[in-house]
């Protein structure tokens, strides 16, 4: 996220809504239960949807490239990614549409994998119907989404390490050696944790301290 975004994010916002819908097959993860082609085809009938496609792996570089090109060619200004959970790839797809000149917040995801194909594996028809519903819900939401801009705040270049066992010590040293100030908090009178109590340690069979 950089200055480039601030310049570009204002474009397209006041224009008519032009939505692109991408139904990711995720290999067979989604496609083996949900009829992705059918979902994409039916989604193309929804108002304001300009492009609707089923795509092999949306998160892969060829997948993203195709979407970015579509955005530029068709003047899309809202994107629905019907794929995995937004908790996984929302940052990926936000970055993708930003690279194509859109504000990253003009994206909505329909969770067709974790919350559809994987949980209704024995009901392909119902899953396909649900997928279409989820896509339509996403379209109705994306239509109303607005550009948002991030704020920049100062950040304190100091880290707190809670715990002075082997993990805490390693973390503190790595941070400190990289030039960051570290405050290490340990509840016992000495650092070292369980490691300090051990004799030799596997797999090297050397001393722990």
């Amino acid at each position, binding site marked *: 996220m950089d200055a480039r975004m601030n310049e570009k994010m204002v474009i397209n916002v006041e224009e008519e809504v032009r939505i692109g819908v991408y139904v990711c097959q995720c290999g067979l993860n989604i496609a083996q239960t949900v009829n992705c082609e059918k979902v994409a085809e039916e989604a193309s009938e929804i108002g304001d949807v300009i492009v609707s496609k089923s795509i092999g792996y949306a998160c892969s570089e060829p997948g993203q490239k195709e979407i970015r090109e579509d955005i530029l060619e068709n003047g899309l200004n809202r994107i629905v990614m019907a794929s995995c*959970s937004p*908790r*996984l790839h929302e940052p990926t797809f936000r970055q993708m549409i930003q690279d194509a000149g859109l504000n990253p*917040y003009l994206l909505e995801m329909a*969770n067709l994998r*974790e*919350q559809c194909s994987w*949980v209704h594996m*024995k009901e392909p028809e119902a899953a396909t119907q*649900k997928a279409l519903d*989820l896509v339509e*819900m996403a*379209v*109705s*939401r994306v239509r109303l989404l607005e550009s948002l801009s*991030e*704020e*920049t*705040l100062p*950040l*304190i270049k*100091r*880290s*707190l*390490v*809670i*715990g*002075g*066992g*082997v*993990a*805490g*010590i*390693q*973390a*503190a*040293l*790595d*941070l*400190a050696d990289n*030039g*960051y*100030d570290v*405050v*290490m*908090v*340990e*509840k*016992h*009178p*000495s*650092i*070292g944790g*369980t490691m300090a*109590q*051990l*004799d030799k340690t*596997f*797999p090297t*069979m050397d001393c722990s301290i």
Partner: protein
Amino acid sequence: MTDAGRHPRITLHTMSEIVGVKGYVGNFDVKIVKKARYVDEKECTACGDCVKVCPVVRPDEFNMGLSSRKAIFSPFPQAVPSAYLININECLGHNPSVCAKCVDACDKKCINFHMSDEEISLNVGTIIVATGHEPYNPKELDEYGYTRFENVLTSLEFERLVNAGGPSNGELVRPSDRKHPESIGFIQCVGSRSARKGSEYCSNICCMNTIKSTLILKEHYPDMEIKVFYMDIRAFGKGFEDLYKRSRRLGVQYLRGLPGTVEETEGGKIRVAVENTATGKIEFYELDMLVLAIGIKPSKGTRRLQEMLGLQLTPDGFYLEAHPKLQPVDAATRGIFYAGTAEGPKDIKESVTQASAAVARAIRLMHRGEIKTEPITAEIIDEKCKFCGKCAEVCPYNAIKVDTKKKTPAAVNTAACAGCGTCAAECKFDAIIMNHYTDDQINNQTDTMLRNKSEERILVFACNWCSYAGADYAGVSRLQYPSNVRLIRTMCSGRVDEKFIWHAFLKGAPVVLVSGCHIGDCHYIDANRWTEKRIEKVHKKMEKMGIRPERLQLEWISAAEGIRFAGVMKKMEGLRKSVSEHEITETVEILKKKMKKKKKQRS
């Protein structure tokens, strides 16, 4: 250890605990309480003169009570900091001064009984949680006789006995008679992989730790008879299988089967009865000593810190990472990272690897010296604000200021606003826009979902951090549940406005579920308490209006509770089936009438 103690960039606070954390990524406000050491940390040269004169003798914690220490002591010779400390509860001399022998013995005058606990406040940009674990206490496994029989030890006690710096200077002796044991047994999975007692998970380190111990023993005492009782040996890491084979080659006997009973016989010997699952026979062994390979439990302070930092836990009680595969060291809260066994049982190598990974992630955030905040924040519409102050009251972050006396509209500090949306849900005058989760954006989803066959739908409002993630977890676990469930994601359950619920019922929803993080686990400190109050209020209103309150459900589902999510969905389906079409139509009519009345009142 010493490197960390003397690094100019590392400030070390021992005997200290975190008591409060406020703020957000880049600007955390941390409060630490540093307990009094009663010995000047900087001045003490660890000469040990004080220890010689101290009359109080206590079990030494570092040596697992296998040796003793004084009330003034250093935890162990290589301790960092090296300064001594006084356990003031054991000391005879502080108030009023009756002993104080150490004070006289200390040439440098570093002992001060008037030292008090210190509160330290500081600001940090990132936090690394490396709070470690607790060893499992095998006392509850009565059949193994730990603490009943002197010669039954935990693996950690065994470590101290074979350690050159330990109470026996590395000589392995039996606690009962200080004689060299000629035979020794190890029981694996003590407190691990058991549905009965201890924990169900594998503690990761015990197999290799035992193998290591057998190698040390074979090195020192080649003729010792060593037996390992196990379920299966998990030597999965790099170089591990080699060690396991070496141990077998050296004559260590591995017996597949966990002992059923352990008894003490004459001369402090330990008699073990075990079903050897390789031979299918019950076998008995008489051993001089028995070591319990104890597992790893979440550290005691985990829950408190979790609440303070707004983190999530797995059902096992360890910290939950943002994503098990792709963000294995990130907490869901931005700017917080995990390292070591705080996140789950792991060995030293893995702990170190994870620590370095956590640091790389922390530096990735910090190196620019500034941070971009998510713009999902609340915004006030000044003209609509009636200065009631409710938003400021409910905001968990004190991010909203409103002067109810001067009647100035509320103002949001966007840097402090975390975007839970509770204010927008509580505002009666619709004067707050929750960006990216506006009323219209959410109601539009409801409209679409219920546009046809609404009577078949299960509408679920799910918070991003727990319930929505719990639904994802159900997916990852391939748990099947009814396909008529439709989720609407909000950042927090606190965002779920009463209006959204009425809107859903008005549009013909048979049932509505509001779900969020468990109380105490809310990602937005305690915003879900407002959810709870709100649902209670709506339930009462429903009852008054003649709408069955059960049709609105509230459930807390954590990010790790995939099974629970699927279970709740099945329960909701049962509930949905109990709602007739007639009931739905009736509700819609009730709500329509109510709307008309409201409109009339307004005009």
